[in-house]
């Protein structure tokens, strides 16, 4: 892999950029691998990357039915934070966040991690108490967050209307090193690094069946033929239920449409991420200048990658109340993604009834931020066959035991 740098750009510029090599190869599948990962979203690619980097396992294929990063990884609003309430969540999201800090250097690909600060507004007394609880919890978890008053909120976000009329801002949970990153770059950076380690990323290849014998997976059927494997990792987000079904087990996961939108670009006016859970909406400004906006999920299951339009209207109402000056901006694009929701709104990183098959899913509306940490923990699970401490609590058998990791306690909007 040729390294990227400002010098490489200068060198290439002189020859009109004719010398750049492919960011990743597009090989035909081999007949078998040590590990097959299904799904080349952020989580699948990161799993493969840390398999190679942390465990030296590189005879790996990542199989993707569409184009890599084209699922929720390429559709989300890129909020990164780790101010979660429950211990297992705080641990894995903070691991992810701290990996994001160095990810550009690690991958030699600028993923534009921008720890610009993140605010979760408290607009009822109940929310104030909830966020105070989170700050106390975060202090003990080693996650740096603080409670700030309305004046500080206004100072950080001058365009915000903090006094009402409906829900005056009473303060906010502030994570100074939360922020955003460039979603495509995260997928591309991991893909490039995986490819450089000799892994095969096989796009436009859908897994259509999982073959197993005696309780272990032997391989997968795909639209490009049968591929044998010693271990299988399923990392397909909104399609988890379907692939698990191929492997013969059921998951406590539902698939729902979640939508987002962007405005036309304007000059910089907000350099933190703001989430407002009482009114239900959140907003940040991309480096291009677009206001990036998201809201709630549909109330019914579907796979269409379109959502019900009234959510867009509700979200915009909420945000115009919070930021009156956005009223005359225009919605440029609007889209949806299918998110995989578990009963406690926390993910699954788990062994399955098949001995050598592992699943990573259930990140729902908020898994972009988790990509590096999730890949790290999943790689450990796949490599060792047993979860490490980051993954342990997220096993899917917790639902049977009632051992929920319920984050809805802390946040109405879970991104």
């Amino acid at each position: 892999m040729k390294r990227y740098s400002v010098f490489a750009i200068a060198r290439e510029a002189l020859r009109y950029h004719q010398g750049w090599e492919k960011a990743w190869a597009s090989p035909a599948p081999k007949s078998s691998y040590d590990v097959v990962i299904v799904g080349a979203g952020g989580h699948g690619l990161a799993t493969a990357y840390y398999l190679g980097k942390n465990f030296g396992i590189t005879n790996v294929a990542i199989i993707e039915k569409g184009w890599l990063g084209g699922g929720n990884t390429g559709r989300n609003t890129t909020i990164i934070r780790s101010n979660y309430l429950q211990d297992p969540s705080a641990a894995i999201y903070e691991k992810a966040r701290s990996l994001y800090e160095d990810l550009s250097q690690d991958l030699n690909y600028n993923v534009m991690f921008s720890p610009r600060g993140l605010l979760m507004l408290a607009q009822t007394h109940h929310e104030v108490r909830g966020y105070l609880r989170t700050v106390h919890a975060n202090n003990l978890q080693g996650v740096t967050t603080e409670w700030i008053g309305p004046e500080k909120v206004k100072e950080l976000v001058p365009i915000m209307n903090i006094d009402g009329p409906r829900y005056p801002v009473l303060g906010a949970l502030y994570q100074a090193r939360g922020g955003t990153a460039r979603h495509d770059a995260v997928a591309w950076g991991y893909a490039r690094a995986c490819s450089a380690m000799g892994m095969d990323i096989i796009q436009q290849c859908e897994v259509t069946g999982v073959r197993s014998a005696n309780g272990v997976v032997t391989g997968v059927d795909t639209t490009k033929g049968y591929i044998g494997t010693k271990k299988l990792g399923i990392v397909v987000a909104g399609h988890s239920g379907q692939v698990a079904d191929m492997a013969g087990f059921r998951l406590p996961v539902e698939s729902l449409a979640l939508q987002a939108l962007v405005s036309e670009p304007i000059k910089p006016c907000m350099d933190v991420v703001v989430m407002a859970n009482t009114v239900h909406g959140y907003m940040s400004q991309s480096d291009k200048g677009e206001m990036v906006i998201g809201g709630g999920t549909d109330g019914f299951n579907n796979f269409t990658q379109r959502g019900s339009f009234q959510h867009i209207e509700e979200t915009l109402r909420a945000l115009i109340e919070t930021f009156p000056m956005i009223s005359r901006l225009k919605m440029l694009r609007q889209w949806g993604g299918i998110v995989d929701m578990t009963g406690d709104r926390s993910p699954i990183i788990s062994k399955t009834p098949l001995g050598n098959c592992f699943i990573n899913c259930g990140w729902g509306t908020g898994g972009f931020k988790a990509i590096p940490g999730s890949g790290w923990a999943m790689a450990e699970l796949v490599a060792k066959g047993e979860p490490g401490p980051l993954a342990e609590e997220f096993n899917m058998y917790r639902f049977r035991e009632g051992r929920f990791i319920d984050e809805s306690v802390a946040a109405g909007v879970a991104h």
Partner: protein
Amino acid sequence: MSTRLAKGGRLIDRAAPQDFTFNGKRLRGFKGDTLAAALLANDQMLVGRSFKYHRPRGIVASGAEEPNALVNMGEGGRFEPNQRTTTTELFDGLTCTSQNHFPSLEFDIGVLNNYAARFLPAGFYYKTFIHPRAAWKHVFEPIIRQSAGLGKVPKDRDADRYEQAYAFCDLLITGGGIAGLQAALTAGKAGKRVWLMEQTAHWGGRAPVDGVEIDGTPAEAWVKNAVQALEAMENVTMRLRCMAAGSYDHGYVLADEKVADHTPGDGRPRHRLWRIRAGQIIAATGAIERPLSFAGNDIPGVMLAAAMRDYLVNWAVAPGDRTVVVTNNDDAYRTAIALKEAGLEVPVILDARATVTGDLPAKARALGIRVEAGKAIAKVKGGKRVTSVAICAQAGQGAVLEEIACDAVAMSGGWSPVVHLWSHCGGKLNWDAAQAHFAPDPARPPLNHDGSALVVTAGAASGVLLAGDVLANATAAAGGDVAPVASGPVEAAMEPVWVMPQGATIDLRMKMWLDYQNDVKVSDVQLAAREGYSSVEHTKRYTTLGMATDQGKLSNINGLAVLADSLSSPIPQVGTTTFRPPYTPVTFGALAGEARGDIFQPLRQTPIHAWHEAHNAYFEPVGLWRRPYCYPRPGETHEQAVHREVVNTRTNVGLLDASTLGKIIVKGPDAGKFLDMLYTNVMSNLGIGKCRYGLMCSEQGFLSDDGVVARIDEDTWLCHTTSGGADRIHAWMEDWLQCEWWDWQVYTANVTEQFAQIAVVGPNARKVLEKLGGMDVSKEALPFMQWADGEMGGFRVRAYRISFSGELSYEIAVPASEGRAFWDALVTAGAEFGMMPYGTEGLHVLRAEKGFIMIGDETDGTVIPQDLNLGWAISKKKADYLGKRGQERPFLASPDRWKLVGLETLDGSVIPDGSIAPAPGTNANGQRNTQGRVTSTYYSPTLKRGIAMGLVKGGLSRVGETIEMTRLDGSTLQVKIVDPVFYDKEGEKQNV
């Protein structure tokens, strides 16, 4: 020079001049102008700067596809960035400024990026700014952000209002060109309920400009007749300035009507957002002309050929004096002919096709225009305005044959159907090799609920371009069979030209713009392909092709073709990117509608709300309600007010507006059975006239709501819920009744707002009621946990002896309409006893002193009743209730769960909200272990010290132990575990 011609202009009214300003310059246009036409009429070709390289940008198009000519428009509360001048109607007093430059449009420092363009190819930022780590956030990102963005940031609250409306129709036709009009005529005559909408301010679309004849009359006249005929049909609704933004499942269409954009401040809503449910949609949305990719095709003065014709014919504006026309099809000859006939110069028509036949070229030649076949533009020269073009052979690499001076270039690369509405909800496309465009595949339409085609296309949107074919296609789309006949010249086939000249060298390709606004060039797409970003979505994202505010209306197909060529694959195999709504950007305000300010979320008010306001209540939001938190007196802090209210209630008598409390009637032969499933305890055996406290759990077993249930009669119960929980619990009941137990005979009604409910609380409560007079409220007549109907002070009341404070307490319900009067009567009766109202915070303190739990404080969705020592409220006898199975799971039945206790600091101070009790050591992830947390914490004015409730591992078995709890500053404080009932442990006070 671009200028206004002395004659002509079918859309302008020369008798109505309109004054406007651009960058402070005072300019004049006419009524009927678009802002773009008026700018051109004033020789303002340069209107902005591009996104990345800050290159000078001029007007290229005449409609919604315009990528360049965006301005900051208006001022103050009517300021709006990124306003597209080509779709903005001019009005008197309009003000606008150009965007994305510093210090001025003419001299922009950002243009340095242009000179460094070679070092800033597509995706350069992914490859650099990697070291040092902190530099991205602190140095590079701020610079990039500042030079990106387009329009200025609005500062003020929007001065306009917006409206939303619903409509239903059999057939929705989008697009008011001849295809849309013909489809509407056909369906209208057949009696269908038709909606016809057009995004511009005029009916007729392109045909009147292109000089088509329909049924022997000029298109202009045909359009006029068609509009008149349609207006006469009662079943047809017509809307101008109305843009269909997106089509969604089941025939849902969103349309934005720009009601008053051209008459700002006239009192009407600015936009009206239509949500239309249509049986079927006909997309008669036309086609958009494609630019050609030659070096310098972005220099101001290079314009789409048809757009140039629009300016000429519609607004009598000549974008240039000497215009070179460059094309791969016959249509562009219409522009050359129109220019020539207007007396302007057309030095040459460069036609990339090797042979040029057809009626239009013949006519051009006959007018004396030089036509060069097989020729191309090697390069356009000029900076802020075209000065000349260098001509070469299309087949070659760009060797210059000749240079021709000119001040404008009209280009045409063929036409692409507008398929957005077709594609939004799943319609598939075919590649039409002859016309080099993607057109809807009629065999694979988006489907309606019954499997029929939800969307069909008509006219140019179907991929047919000649007027006669357009009308036939539109007639058929609307189910008719007799189409008007249109005549026009015979046109020869176009030939796709994706790069001009065909073998252009890299230095030329680096100057060929695909996406004008985002500065994506042919070389960028080729680079993406070279680097493996070869899926069209990867290419789009890597280069930002098609992601600008025009959403790639001009660039997508050209970019795709270049990509296909780089990958050596056929275009259809490469495919298109997804078409996402909206078709053109929609103002947020329109999407939000009327729900702003005070009515953003309608405020629910109790009948007594006005009294609270008049008595200086400080309110807090509780769901959609706003409840008094306390009633501070002059000079009092909120805290002092709460303390006064609590003490007065404990020692004397207080008054609480409890109307927000949920009240749900559950009635029917199976109501008792139903409630026994819903609540953890038994409700079916509750005696008539009695009250019982009950708990409700989710299926998972977690406590979700609580409240007092009253048995009204043999088959009627009244369930009180928490204020915030009423709607949720009512929906929960209905969910079970409608989805699971639909054969049970139970009816529910949420009567929360039908009653005002007032709590009279404190040792003197009975005296106040006796003073009011009426029903017997003695201990004997109305004992604790019973209710009775009666009369009090002349009001019909239902009085409950229930208490959430531990005091002697009556909750008295009256019909909502009498609530305020009853409250006033109580206030009067209580005056001599020193009765005071108290708010929600007082209520909280009172209940915490008694160790009563509060849903949302002691519970958070992870707590089961057993955790709160409420096992007594869980029936052991019942076979089942919602949550029972959940609670039996190992983790929920574990003895290690955190359980409710009281907490007290050693020094009497108040434990901070949210405080957590750390335990020794750390877990496997290095996080500090914990053993409990505070759930409610208050200063008790009754006990004059801090009191708290919390959940602690081991629960009441640890009473007497001292543990540490966190403070926000990182320190800890010493806390003793105590019984959670801090006051009147025996419960003597409430039962008197």
